[in-house]
């Protein structure tokens, strides 16, 4: 069950010829896959491609009707390996995953897939996550495309171009017997737009039918001696065919005036940013009509040399707009010019920065610099030499606090790190290795725990050098997602085999929570197409761990602390594994809220917990926040001249998880926290007893009030 449901949106996947599709980029890509008669789809969640997996998961009906197999693969490697179905069978297949790191994980399968080549179109849809909001820097799938000889598509970021790229990609793949990568930047995945739909196609040969008539061709095996032949085939046959296909079908675009003195070569994904920069330089309009000639690379690998050289004819200079480093495209184009007898010079990095996302101001500045040097007459005097002295932005940076992402309200992982912080204070600091996942927020305030994160499921493995032990044991943290992705073998198996003395904490929140709450093997939810409920404890015991403790309610901070202490001090040999389980609060709320609302409406007894702080008792030292960081635990200024500092306060977003009360207890902070449980539709006996108790309490309170001075706030 994913955080975001696309159940409503997937209805748009049914539309056909003559209708207009309206929606998010990711949904459009899914629609295009169906229009292309894809036979199987799969992938692994991760921003910015998670929603594609969620869409596919929610689209089981339509996939089933079209006889398309959907697999939620265990990892990017597993997803890429699945494309093996297109090696011998003329079936189109597509898998999706996060580009950065995901392509690294997939590279083993990718190399082998590329070696033998494919019969049916095989497509990897890769989300590149480069700048703002990116969890991991992209290393560019470009290098992998070149290394394995896989073609790389980087379409313009609008739904028409992106869905066309899906069709083009399959055709290119089949025409050249080569898998292709379709690269989408994060904003393109989430762009809202429209395109004219076509009818969905059933796969001409379904995977089900293929099983009835198995095929094999040993020459396609990535094994010597065939692999040596593939190496030649790739460059002697597939590459030239690809370039021919790209040029014959006009996959790259030339725009603007012909035979201008200068030109710009741009990765398709950056085209809109380029056009806006040209617009601001008064050289283009909002419809892409430009005074500067543009060669838009919707396929960034391989590069079509003849096409590029034709573009350069009559040009003095071209600017290559290529995000990331190394500048593979600029180097390649420079080489082409060098081999030709054209006098054109190619520029790129220098006018544009080596690294970082090409955001609007970067693009504008790079373009202006290039034009000022090579076509100064195209710029108005004001644009050629702008007055730089004006500072429009006030000095405000110091006034605005940073707001990095963090644990959500009620997150069950927060108490795990509160417990870890307490144990650090008790027995000294520990070497802590982190992993990928929500729990990585532990490295930020208020916890400040952990110093490395080497990869998904690699947290414990990255503490391997410390496996031999020392004065204090090393601790590593890994999520349930990482555990099933890679961690069971690479981290836990590794620790067992090497007789590690360290402590491994597996954070089990029932989902792949960081990527949007997709189901994984240990999820507790009932999923009609997946086998969930597989035990992490059973798996680690099966692989040879003898010391395992399971905490089934992570909010019990004292228990977390005590279990950690035990793990850090026990005489038991081998790795000490703690499985800390509680459901991701985002998903839990999404599940429980409507249920509770329904129950209340139906008159059933429902308990709604909420926490509060007694502002009279709180002294405003904020010790609770230094062990929590919960968004709902916040500051409040009291209307009291005797108070200097704001007190703690719990706002209306509280979900009643209990973390703040437990922390106050475990760390012996203060008695100001209380839990207020509202019981809707109480039983008759319960309500009667409550009335009686309240009467007694009120009597006692009045009795005391009659003897003392009491102050009461009343409206003035």
């Amino acid at each position, binding site marked *: 069950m994913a955080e975001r449901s696309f159940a409503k949106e997937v209805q748009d996947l049914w539309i056909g010829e003559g209708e207009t599709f309206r929606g998010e980029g990711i949904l459009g890509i899914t629609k295009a896959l169906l229009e292309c008669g894809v036979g199987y789809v799969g992938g692994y969640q991760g921003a910015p491609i998670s929603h594609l997996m969620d869409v596919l998961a929610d689209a089981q009906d339509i996939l089933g009707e079209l006889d398309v197999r959907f697999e939620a693969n265990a990892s990017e490697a597993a997803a890429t390996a699945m494309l093996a179905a297109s090696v011998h069978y003329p079936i189109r297949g597509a898998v999706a995953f996060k580009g950065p790191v995901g392509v690294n994980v997939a590279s083993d399968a990718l190399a082998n897939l590329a070696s033998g080549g494919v019969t049916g179109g095989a497509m990897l849809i890769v989300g590149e996550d480069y700048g703002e909001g990116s969890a991991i820097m992209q290393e560019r799938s470009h290098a992998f495309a070149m290394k394995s000889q896989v073609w790389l598509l980087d379409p313009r970021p609008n739904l028409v171009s992106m869905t066309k790229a899906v069709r083009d990609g399959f055709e290119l793949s089949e025409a050249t017997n080569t898998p292709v990568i379709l690269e989408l930047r994060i904003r393109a995945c989430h762009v809202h737009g429209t395109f004219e739909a076509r009818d969905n196609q059933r796969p001409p040969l379904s995977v089900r039918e293929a099983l009835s008539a198995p095929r094999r061709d040993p020459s396609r095996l990535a094994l010597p001696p065939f692999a040596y032949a593939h190496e030649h085939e790739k460059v002697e046959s597939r590459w030239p065919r690809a370039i021919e296909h790209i040029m014959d079908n006009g996959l790259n675009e030339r725009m603007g005036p012909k035979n201008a003195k200068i030109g710009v070569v741009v990765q398709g994904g950056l085209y809109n940013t380029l056009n806006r920069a040209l617009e601001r330089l008064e050289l283009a309009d909002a419809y892409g009509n430009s005074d500067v000639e543009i060669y838009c690379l919707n396929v960034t690998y391989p590069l079509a040399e003849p096409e590029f050289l034709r573009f350069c004819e009559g040009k003095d200079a071209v600017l290559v707009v290529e995000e990331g480093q190394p500048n593979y495209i600029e180097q390649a184009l420079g080489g082409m010019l060098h081999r030709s007898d054209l006098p054109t010079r190619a520029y790129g990095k220098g006018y544009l920065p080596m690294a970082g996302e090409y955001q*609007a101001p970067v693009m504008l500045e790079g373009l202006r610099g290039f034009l000022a040097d090579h076509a100064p007459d195209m710029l108005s005097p004001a644009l050629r030499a702008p007055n730089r002295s004006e500072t429009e932005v006030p000095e405000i940076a110091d006034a605005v606090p940073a707001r990095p992402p963090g644990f959500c309200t009620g997150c069950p992982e927060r108490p795990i790190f509160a417990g870890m912080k307490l144990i650090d204070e008790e027995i000294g600091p520990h070497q802590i290795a982190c992993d990928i996942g929500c729990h990585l927020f532990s490295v930020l305030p208020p916890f400040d725990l952990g110093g490395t994160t080497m990869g998904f499921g690699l947290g414990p493995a990255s503490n391997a050098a410390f496996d031999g032990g020392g004065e204090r044991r090393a601790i590593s943290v890994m999520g349930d997602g990482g555990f099933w992705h890679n961690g069971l073998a690479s981290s836990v198996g590794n620790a067992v085999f090497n007789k590690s003395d360290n402590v491994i904490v597996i954070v089990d929140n029932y989902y792949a929570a960081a990527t949007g709450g997709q189901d994984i093997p240990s999820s507790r939810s009932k999923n009609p197409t997946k086998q969930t409920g597989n035990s992490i404890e059973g798996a680690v015991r099966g692989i040879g761990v003898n010391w395992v403790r399971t905490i089934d309610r992570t909010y019990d901070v004292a228990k977390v602390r005590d279990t950690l202490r035990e793990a850090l001090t026990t005489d038991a040999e081998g790795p000490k594994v703690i499985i800390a389980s509680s459901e991701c609060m985002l998903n839990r709320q999404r599940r429980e809220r409507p249920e509770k609302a329904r129950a209340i409406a139906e008159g059933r007894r429902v308990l709604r917990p909420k926490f509060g702080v007694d502002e009279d008792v709180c002294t405003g030292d904020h010790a609770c926040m230094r062990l929590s960081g919960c968004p709902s635990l916040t500051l409040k200024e009291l209307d009291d001249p005797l108070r200097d500092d704001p007190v703690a306060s719990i706002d209306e977003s509280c979900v009643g998880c209990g973390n703040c009360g437990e922390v106050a207890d475990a760390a012996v*902070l203060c008695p100001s926290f209380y839990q207020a449980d509202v019981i809707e539709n109480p039983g008759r006996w319960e309500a009667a007893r409550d009335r009686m108790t309240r009467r007694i309490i009120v009597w006692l309170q009045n009795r005391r009030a009659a003897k003392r001075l009491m102050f009461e706030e009343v409206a003035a």
Partner: protein
Amino acid sequence: MNDQFILPVGSFTHAEGLLKLSVHAVGGQGGGVLTNWIVALAEANGYYAQSTSVPGLAQRTGSTIYYVEMMPATETTPVLALMPAPGDVDVVVASEMMEAGRAVERGFVSAGRTTVITSTHRVYATSEKLIPGDGRADRERVLELTRASAKRTVAFDMHDFAKRSKSHVSASLFGALAGSGALPFPVESYVSVIEASGRGVAASLDAFHKAREAAQTGVDEAANAPVAKRAEVRGPEKKRAEWQRLLTRVEALPGPVAEMAKAGLRKVAEFQDERLAGDYLTTVEEAVAGDDADHMWLYSTTFAKYLANALCYDDLIRVADLKTRAARFARVRDHADPSDTALLRTTEYMHPRAEEVVGMFPAALGRKVEASPKLFAWIDRRVNKGRRYRSDGIVAFVALYMLGGLKPIRRFTLRDAQEREHREAWLSYARHLLPRDYDLAVEVLACRRLIKGYSDTHARGLSKFDLAMQGARKLEGRADAAEWLRRLRTAALSDPSDQPLRDALKTVDSFLDAG
């Protein structure tokens, strides 16, 4: 970014009717919902609209930006940008004050062009909450800078509007956007967009219309201000008469002292009784006698403030008393907001230690126990554990009620003796300084702010206080002594550990050694 290319104003080629709008939110605030509404609104009015966002992990309570471009639809599909550019945004919508500030910081707000719609409420960042003192960013300054940077600003607490309509801030932001007239669309089409969204429509529309009207008419800031309150005193007639006499004495004090002493008096009376309040007032009057108007009565005002805080220490009696009061019951009810038919249960999270229990012993006995670590540890083992009390239940309530009724024995307890000693030492030091260095005496009084919290936090506060007092003694006689003590206090409040304070003390030592 400092080196960025800034175009002279008026040099852009404005496409006909192209509007650029960015939404700046905190993850989880509904920025996505608002963006979808804006897109639907534009499309309903014959515009071509494109929105993008960078969700990913930023959704988890971090800053998020959504970006929308729209222009009247034509035969040709426009090429629109996927991210806002500095100096090139028409409307900035911010769901929180600092997010508006961040938009200003990033250059998205231009004086000649940008309309800013922002809620002025705060969602505090973690960094602001961790400071033991007051780490909050300066909201007024950011609001002022935002107003100064924008062409037009619509700013009020839209979160409060949403809360009162039991809706979300996205609805009141949408209302303020409609009311601002920044987009060329009629109100009816905003309403249809909300109606078409299908969930919580009535609440959303309520918040929408209230915020729209507020944006149109210009908000009376008082609309957001809490209702003014005054304290009414109740109790036996004799005691009330005594209280009136105390109040008359307070009124006779110089203005600023009187205001502070009035609050102090009430606090002390609530903590103990009118007798202790009378003692408090006498002490304050003595302080006033030694003070003078030339210093705006700063010494005696500070004295009145921190003496009240020092007198009202947190012991078991105080906590139990506060937790069993009718006013507190009402506050809990207000916070949890149960329906008329619902029940309310209250569970107190407490964790007493031997220190608190022994603190309740008679002073002489308590000191003996403290002197015997074995006995103390034995008591600690008996009492030191987390306890959950159902204060709405009769058993726990009566126990707390009785504990809260132990006020008469308070002045015989070990804790009271300890507090008295500590207080006397502190006050006599301030009195000693007063004729010698007025400002330093005031600062010494203000150092009381360092003592707060319970258990370890309280112990750390005490040790910070002691360190600051050591610093004060070293600084005595210097012209800048008060200034330096203030710096020491600021350092102590900036971090939970005493490291910044110790570092500042080292600086003091270095110039004292040098001098």
